[in-house]
Every structure is written in C-alpha cells, then in structure tokens.
C-alpha cells in the first residue's frame, strides 16, 4: 500500500521499521518532523525518544546508546550538525554504528531555513577532527529517503561506522507516496556480525570480552595502526557501498552530475533537451562518499562536456574534476543560500554547452511559467504602445503649442493621453488576473518570483515611459519658448483688438460725420424747397393778392 508521507516523517517511520528504538535530538528547522514523529511513535514501540539539551548532548547520547549496542539515530540540520561534529569524530574513533540525518539548509552561520547542498564537504570529508570517512547517502525522493534510511542502519552495523543520510529542506518537507509494505519490518541484513563489542554490562566471555569503548591512543604507533585498520575499513566501504543512477548516458555528449533535489531538476531539463535532439544525460550519485568515480570515468567515452549542478557554490564539482582528471571540460552551475535552480536555468546551461539557440517555448517548464511569460510580454507590448502613443501625443502637444489654436489642441491631446492610460490600466488588470490565476496553482513559488521580476521590469519600463512623456509635456508647456509664444499670441490678440477698436471708432465717427453732413444737406434742401415754394406762392398771390391783399 502506498501512503502519502512527508519526507521527514517517512524517514522516521522507516528507521523504526528498521529496528531503531532510540532517538536523541534537538529542535532545528527544517527537520523538526523527525523528532516530533519519533516522540510520538517510539513509546508505542517500547523505545526511547529523548529531547537533549543541545545537539552536542544529543550526539553523545547517541554515542552512549550505540556503545551499548542499540540501533540509534539522531537528526538535525546544518548548524546543528556542526555542533555534532565532536561527537561524530568520537563515534568514528570508537567504531560505533549509528545513523545521522542532515536536512541541509543554507549557510554559512545561521544561514537560512531553505534547502541547500552546502554541507557536501563537511559530510564527505568527515566534518570533525581527525581523518575519517562515513557513507553519505543522498536520496532524491521520499521513497528513496525511506529505502536509504533503512539501508543506512545495515551499513552502519556492517562497518561499525556512522552513516549520514544527507537530504535537504525539500526532501524533508515535501510529500510523496511511499510504499509502506516495502518499508514494514525491515529486518537487519542476515550477514551482520553480532555486537560482541557492546558496553552493556554483559558477562565477559572469550567471544565477547569486557567492553572498553574508546578513541584514545596515547602511543603514536598504536594510533597509526588503529588508523591504518580504519582505512582498510573505508577502502572496503568504497569498494562495496558505492551507489549511483545513470540516465540517458549511452550517447551523452553533455553529462550532467547532480544529486538529491538538484538531480530532479536536472532530469526535467534533460528530458526537454532530449526532445530537441540534444545528447544530454544524467549521472546521479546516490552515495556522495564513496563517490562514483569509476562510473563517471566510463562516461568519458561519449562526453564532450560535464555539467555539475548543485545548490552550493560548487563542492561536489571538485570530486567530478578529480574523477575526470582534466580529460574533459567540467562546468558548474549552482544556486545557493536556499535558492533552488529552475529547469529553465539548467536548460539554458545545456543550450550554451550544446551551442544551440534558446527556444523560448523550451524555456518554459510549465503552463504557469508560460502564462507568466505571456503576461510579461503583453505588458511589454502595452508599454511600448503606450510609449509610442505618448510620444505622438507629445509631438502633437508640441505642434499645438506652435499653432494659434494651441489651447484647443492641448485639450485634445490630453484626452488622448487619458484614453491611452485607460488602455494601459485594462492591460495591467488583465495581466494581474493572469498572474493571479497562475499563482493559485500550487507549484513552484520561485518561478512566481522570477516572473514577478519580469513583470516588475516591464512595469518599470511603463513607469519610465510615463515619466518621460510627463516630463516632455511638462517641458513643452513650461519651456521659455512656449511661454514666449503664449505671451506673443496674447500680445497679438491684444494688438488686433486695439486696432479693431480703433477702426470701429473711426468707422463710427465717419458714420456720424456722414449722418451729420447728410442732415445738413437735408436741412439745406428743405430750405431750398421752402424758398422755392414761397416764390411760387408769391407769384399767384400777387395776381390774386392784389385783389385780396
């Protein structure tokens, strides 16, 4: 039966099913679900969970319990693992088996709580003082984390050496289906030797004498002999315990090397590039120590480039370079501080090595990122269109200022600017809706961030162009030239009006003059008529008047 489980909880249950009955730990993100799960489950199995006062104490409790012969585990995350290094060194020196889970987070220092692979050196080079090695198992899925945790107990018991399960925040926090039937009652490997060395208060026998668990060898010759013996053990581990996975390597010209979470991203990028005929393959180390050096060397037959991908500034890449030994270029691409590389980033790296031009479609790892890209593109286009409209409007404003009807044209230009701004608003709304729809998808937060950056950039462009257009309008309106022209136009109107008034005045005066003259003429005519009439009247009157007068 498959069960959906969080990586951390799945690891804890896998450990219990592999016979782990003792867990000592201290809280630290992002691995807290392991101690929490253990605190609930171990009492049900008559085991013991104990929250220690520190990671230092926790690893020393592990030392005690392992020394007493128990299957015991602790877990932590990077800063806590640093604190455990003292104890780990003692456990190796005293040859005790235990399992240590490190859910790696970003560093250095307190760093972040986001996933990282920056503890590669610490894990594969020992980590504590003295030279020693431990098997480092790097799961790439929750199911594999479960399988490797169970195997880790067997490997630890077989070699009497701690085993590190090196996950990262993503492996610990994500949920995936786990085959619980496979996990259940994982019996210790049949060939494991009995723990005759355990300091458990047993009665001494020839096979199992009094136990002295110790890493102190004052005599240098004795300590050298001890280290030589330990080295033989490490050599045996290197020979027998190396694990890796090969994908599409038969004809691979570009060989990617990635482990854990990064290998999943590499796999997606590989599939996209394979569809385009790029000969790219993936070699995924499952054990980081022992490192699959021989497996890498075999890929030299076809490889033209190696591309090492890590969530660090480049640590495993050193081991790849040692393996390749200068026979082929080894390239590195990494994100750090808790940033997780995207498929598009990896594809771009592959394209560059393959000498292939980027395919915009191929750069999108999902519909979401395509939608975001489209939104960003349409915003860019909108910004360009707005810019053009604004430029034109600006020109028209400028021209309008030169024309006598500039007030009216300015008004028209302003209306056009408003209309353009409304169009931008609509396009922004639309883009916003697209972004919102895309964001509601549960996938890939970091892609949202990436796209948001593009949107921001586009918005900034719009802003800049708006600013620029605004400045042009402002400049045009406030320029001394315009002011002067406005002044001139005003002056001209004033002059014209004065002249017109003068003309009208003159005209009116002329009219009055003419009327006056006309009146005089009329009066004169009237007098003439009167005089003529009198003269006419006098003549007949004289004839008659003589009689009448």
């Amino acid at each position: 039966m498959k069960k959906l489980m969080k990586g951390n909880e799945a690891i804890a249950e896998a450990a219990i099913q592999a016979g782990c009955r003792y867990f000592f730990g201290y809280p630290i993100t992002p691995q807290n679900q392991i101690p929490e799960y253990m605190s609930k489950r171990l009492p049900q199995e008559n085991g013991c969970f104990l929250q220690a006062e520190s990671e230092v104490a926790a690893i020393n409790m592990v030392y005690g319990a392992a020394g007493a012969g128990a299957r015991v585990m602790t877990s932590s995350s990077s800063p806590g693992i640093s604190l455990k290094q003292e104890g780990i060194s003692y456990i190796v020196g005293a040859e005790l088996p235990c399992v240590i889970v490190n859910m790696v987070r970003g560093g250095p220092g307190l760093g972040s709580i986001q996933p990282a692979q920056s503890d590669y050196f610490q894990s594969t080079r020992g980590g504590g003082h003295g030279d020693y090695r431990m098997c480092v198992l790097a799961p790439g899925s929750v199911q594999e984390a479960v399988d490797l945790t169970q195997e880790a107990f067997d490997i630890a018991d077989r070699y009497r050496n701690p085993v590190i399960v090196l996950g990262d925040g993503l492996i610990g926090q994500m949920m995936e289906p786990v085959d619980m039937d496979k996990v259940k009652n994982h019996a210790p490997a049949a060939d494991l030797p009995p723990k005759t060395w355990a300091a458990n208060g047993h009665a001494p026998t020839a096979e199992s004498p009094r136990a002295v668990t110790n890493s102190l060898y004052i005599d240098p010759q004795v300590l050298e002999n001890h280290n030589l013996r330990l080295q033989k053990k490490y050599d045996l581990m290197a020979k027998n315990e190396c694990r890796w996975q090969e994908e599409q390597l038969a004809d691979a010209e570009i060989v990617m090397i990635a482990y854990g979470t990064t290998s999943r991203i590499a796999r997606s990028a590989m599939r996209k590039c394979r569809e385009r005929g790029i000969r790219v393959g993936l070699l995924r180390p499952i054990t980081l120590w022992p490192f699959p050096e021989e497996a890498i060397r075999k890929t030299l037959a076809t490889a033209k480039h190696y591309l090492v991908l890590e969530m660090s500034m480049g640590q495993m890449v050193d081991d790849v370079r040692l393996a390749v030994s200068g026979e082929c270029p080894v390239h590195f691409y990494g994100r750090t501080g808790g940033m997780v590389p995207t498929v598009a980033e990896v594809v771009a790296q592959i394209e560059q090595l393959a000498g292939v031009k980027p395919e915009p479609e191929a750069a999108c790892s999902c519909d979401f990122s395509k939608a975001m890209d489209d939104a960003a593109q349409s915003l860019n286009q909108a910004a360009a269109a707005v810019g053009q409209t604004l430029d034109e409007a600006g020109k028209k404003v400028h021209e309008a200022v030169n024309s006598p009807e500039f007030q009216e044209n300015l008004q028209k230009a302003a209306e056009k600017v408003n209309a353009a701004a409304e169009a931008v608003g609509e396009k922004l709304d639309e883009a916003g809706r697209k972004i919102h729809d895309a964001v509601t998808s549960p996938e890939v937060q970091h892609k949202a961030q990436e796209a948001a950056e593009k949107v921001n950039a586009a918005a900034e462009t719009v802003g800049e162009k708006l600013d620029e257009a605004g400045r042009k309008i402002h400049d045009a309106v406030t320029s001394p030239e315009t002011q002067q022209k406005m002044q001139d136009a005003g002056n001209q109107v004033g002059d014209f009006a004065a002249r017109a008034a003068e003309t009208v005045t003159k005209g009116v005066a002329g009219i009055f003059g003419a009327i006056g003259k006309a009146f005089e003429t009329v009066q004169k005519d009237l007098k003439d008529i009167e005089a003529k009439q009198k003269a006419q009247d006098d003549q007949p009157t004289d004839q008659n008047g003589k009689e009448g007068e």
Partner: protein
Amino acid sequence: MAVVFQKTRMLTDKPFHYCPGCTHGIIHRLVAEALDELGIGDTAIGVAPVGCAVFAYDYFTCDMMEAAHGRAPAVATGIKRVCPDKAVFTYQGDGDLASIGTAEIVHAATRGEKITTIFVNNAIYGMTGGQMAPTTLPGQVTTTSPYGRDVNHCGWPVRVSEMLATLNGPAYIERVSVHDVPHIKKAKAAIKKAFQLQMEGKGFTMVEVLSTCPTNWGQTPQEALKWLQDSMMPTYPLGVFKDITAQPAAEGGAR
C-alpha cells in the same frame, strides 16, 4: 592464613598512572568496592571523562566508555536508556563537569537520569598542567591565574553540589572528602548509597569528592591534605545537600 586485606576485584591489575599523593587512587578504590559490595559491579557500565581520570577504563573491570570532554552525563544517559537495569556511572573531574560539561550535568540531573556521578573536585586542571578551574579558590595561584584567581576578573568558584541540589531531578547529592581515614569511610558510605538509590530507581545521584593535586598545587602530599582541609573545605563545606529518602529533620548535614 586469614586474608585481612586485599585489592578489590573490581579493579584491574594495571598500576595507576596518578601522581604520588593524588587521591584519585583512593576514590577509584571506593567506587570499585561500593560496586562490588552491592553486587552490581560485574554488570555496571562506567563512563570515563577527559582529565586525569581519562584512563579510568583501564582500571575498572566493568564495561567502560570513554566520553568527550564534559559529555559523560550525556553518554551515560544514552547507555542507561538502553540498559535501564544496569548500574551506570560517570567519573568526572571539576574542569570536565563544572566547566565544559555544565549543560550535560545540569540536564542529566534535572531529568533525574538514573545514573551516579562521581565528581572529583581538586580545584585545578590536573592533566593539562595546573590551569585555573571553575572550582579554583579566590586568590589561588595556577598557571593561568599566576597572580591568584581575581574574582573581579574571572568570577567565583562554582559550588556544583549546592547548585544541583536546587533541582527536582536529583535523589541524592553529598559532598565528601578523602583527606583522612574517617572521611574516606564516610565517602565510601556516600558512594555506596548513591549507587543503591540509583538501582532503586530514585533518580540522579552525585557524590562530590574533594581531592588533592600535590603536583599542580606545588605541595607535598602531606601539605596537600592539610590544604584541602584548611582552604578547600570552607568554600566547599561537606554534607548532604539532597536526599529524597531522608526523614524530615533527620541528619544535621541535610540542607
């Protein structure tokens, strides 16, 4: 011929590496005798410290684990949780327990971890050559306090028994000395009681044993025994600081 005295069978035949006049040998023997007399020595598991007693695993005949500096209580915790029926003890000096290992001893004590701690306090770092310890007395000259311990500069001595007695977890805490035979006999009784209470599951038990370091104190063994009595005991008074089995208003030493 009747045997009137013999080496305890809980100690190996390996000669102690301790300096002449050092009282570690006496304390080892008291622990070994107590384990033997209680019949728990053959199944006991001891944890050795870092310090003069670092080779304790060479001397006790039971199963032994060597711990990192100060971590013995955590190691003993791991052992005891796996072997709850066995006697588990730590044997620690004052640098190991009261300085670098304060967190481990305080938390083992407050958990009531069912272990016994033998805390050997000689007011100095012996193995590394006589440096100032957390228990070094005010004014005491050591290789790292050549003008005498200046309490204004580096603080006061830590009284571990008094400090741990404030916790609920401990079942029994007593400070004893081994500077003369009557005190050695009292120390033996205290150690035996501590193991007894551990086996009864009462909780954390500790016996602090005042001890000499003639070499690093720059004294003869005789002078050292006197200095312990005259100089150490006023700062580190003997007595029972915690005993959950004691009757109310019982022995005068109880506080």
